[in-house]
């Protein structure tokens, strides 16, 4: 009797529970799972516009022979390898400086460094484009203080265009990462630092041996978030180069290439889906690598 009753209630709760989550599950299935599965299916098709045909692994073979894809992949990885470490280090340094209670104007600096993150992606890209024009404020300032003799072709030279994109995303996202570190630093017990000071541990060693190890989970989190963001980079490049990824495809990213394949070129949705799965695989691989590098080691 009692067992049966309990079973009944259990089933009752189960049914009700599933009923409550059913709308949400249905929506997730419709708007998340179905498109993901469908895009996977699409990546095995090829053709022009709506004339899609099953093509097997033809799209994957095409990736290998596509110099533009290789270029976009190289650019994206360059951004990632150069930009993410610079930004993470910069954010860590800024956070530990701004965590100092004796610093005057802490609130102001925190706000100032975080502010770029709440500006619109498009607005700041357009602004950067103006500032870094051949006769823009950056070149004229650098010339005035004598660092450069002739203006740097920020937007028209393949190397400098990449540098400009890296400057832009670093400016935009450093403050965002810094906020995470600041929050985490305030959770570190002050007594640990106190003990270290009493033992005569110098400030630099306190930073590398106390702050950084205790921030490890947060650093891992921000690294993964930044990796995903950089691999998916689109807005800045689109706006800085008028959607072309120029000069000479030097700033073309994978996301921008997907956009071009879908909306600017002859629409090939199958191939575009294949390139988007390259991003998925890349992000997954890099995240695994980062988890592996940051795993807890037995001492």
């Amino acid at each position: 009797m009692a067992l049966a009753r309990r079973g009944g209630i259990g089933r009752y709760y189960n049914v009700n529970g599933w009923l409550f989550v059913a709308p949400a599950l249905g929506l997730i299935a419709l708007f998340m799972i179905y498109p993901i599965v469908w895009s996977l299916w699409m990546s095995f098709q090829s053709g022009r516009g709506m004339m899609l045909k099953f093509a097997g692994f033809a799209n994957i073979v095409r990736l290998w022979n596509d110099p533009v894809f290789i270029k976009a992949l190289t650019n994206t990885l360059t951004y990632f390898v150069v930009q993410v470490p610079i930004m993470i280090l910069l954010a860590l340094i800024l956070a530990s400086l701004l965590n100092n209670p004796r610093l005057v104007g802490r609130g102001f600096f925190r706000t100032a460094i975080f502010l770029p993150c709440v500006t619109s992606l498009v607005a700041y890209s357009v602004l950067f484009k103006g500032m870094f024009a051949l006769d823009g404020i950056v070149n004229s300032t650098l010339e005035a203080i004598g660092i450069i003799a002739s203006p740097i072709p920020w937007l028209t030279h393949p190397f400098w265009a990449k540098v400009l994109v890296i400057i832009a995303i670093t400016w935009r996202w450093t403050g965002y990462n810094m906020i995470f570190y600041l929050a985490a630093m305030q959770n570190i017990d002050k007594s640990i630092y106190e003990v270290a000071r009493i033992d005569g541990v110098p400030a630099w060693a306190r930073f590398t041996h106390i702050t950084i190890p205790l921030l490890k989970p947060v650093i891992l989190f921000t690294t993964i978030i930044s990796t995903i963001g950089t691999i998916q980079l689109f807005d800045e490049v689109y706006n800085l180069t008028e959607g072309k990824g120029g000069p000479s495809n030097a700033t073309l990213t994978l996301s921008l290439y997907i956009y071009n394949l879908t909306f600017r070129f002859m629409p090939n949705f199958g191939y575009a889906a294949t390139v988007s799965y390259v991003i998925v695989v890349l992000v997954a691989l890099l995240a695994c690598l980062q988890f592996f590098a940051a795993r807890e080691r037995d001492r």
Partner: protein
Amino acid sequence: MDMRIYLPRFSAIVLAGASLLAVTAAQAKEITVWCWDPNFNVAIMKEAGARYTKTHPDVTFNIVDFAKADVEQKLQTGLSSGTADALPDIVLIEDYGAQKYLQSFPGAFAPLSGTVDYSGFAPYKVELMTLDGQVYGMPFDSGVTGMYYRKDYLEAAGFKPEDMQGITWDRFIEIGQQVEAKTGKKMMGLDPTDAGLVRIIMQSAGQWYFDKEGKANITGNAALKGALETVGKIMSSNIYKPAAGWADWVGTFTSGDVATVITGVWITGTVKAQPDQSGKWGVAPIPALSIDGATHASNLGGSSWYVLESSAEKAEAIDFLNAVYAKDVDFYQTILQDRGAVGSLLAARGGAAYGEADAFFGGEKVWQNFSDWLAKVPSVNYGVFTNEADTAVTAQLPALQQGTPVDDVLKAIDAEVSAQVQ
């Protein structure tokens, strides 16, 4: 108490209003049009709509103004999603992209072959909207090219307007060097991230990135090779002012820094927007290559109207386009004078506005010239991958600037185009 008096009257008004609405809803047809330039095709479409509404009061127009890239993206998204609700009745498509849409989305556009008399239009415009024997669009503006030049600068360098007529590109570069030596002005503005000049020169010699069958035509393309050589020479002889982007390029001639502008006729309005330069400009045919089939006529840009097959107002939209754009010669005189639009309806050339002299160009009959050149534009197959090929050419322009041999540049372009074209 008062309510009793007012209520019947009130409901009577509501009823009358509702029935009025129902009647108008049943009769009025609204044609939605997407296009992109408020000073050009949007304004022209409004003029065309106003003309049609005069004779067909039941048809109204909703002309939506987007950026060109947005029109293309919305159209491409709408067509590929398979739901036609969000699409307009008429859309403007740039000629380079026409075949791409026609071939990738079969059945999306209404064929107009039976309705419109295409023999009256410039043949190259009709050809680029033809697929499997059916013609799909209404030819609109032409991008027939010309060379706008500053008479005052050239005179200071010792050249008369006659010296600018029918020249070759090599002669153009020689003149450019002398202009710079004598006046300190550059010969032209050039945006190294824009392959427009390459396309102009290539088409003037009757070739394109693709042959008539749509196959990539890069390494064996004498016109493309000549175009790249010419651009390379312009760069190495340093007779150009570099520009970053469209606005910057426009600035090179509105500011008076360069002596010539070589582009499509649609730039006329921008050139004339500087009243202080009135009388200083002349227009000549563009220079030609020194190869077989080279001409002084080419095309840059230009676009046409297309009716969506799924449109609820398809019949009205087709009738409207046919009535105004294929028959109304007077309409073409108005848009020429107001907007500088050279249409591709050949009969329009007989109109009064085309024969008029333009004081801005020192009394030259520029419109007559442009329409004469229009008839000579070599017809080429823009194919479906012009955007891809153009991106490949643009990517190689810096290499050309650094002095890479043209044959190597062609090979690099060919490699990139071959990978894209499938």
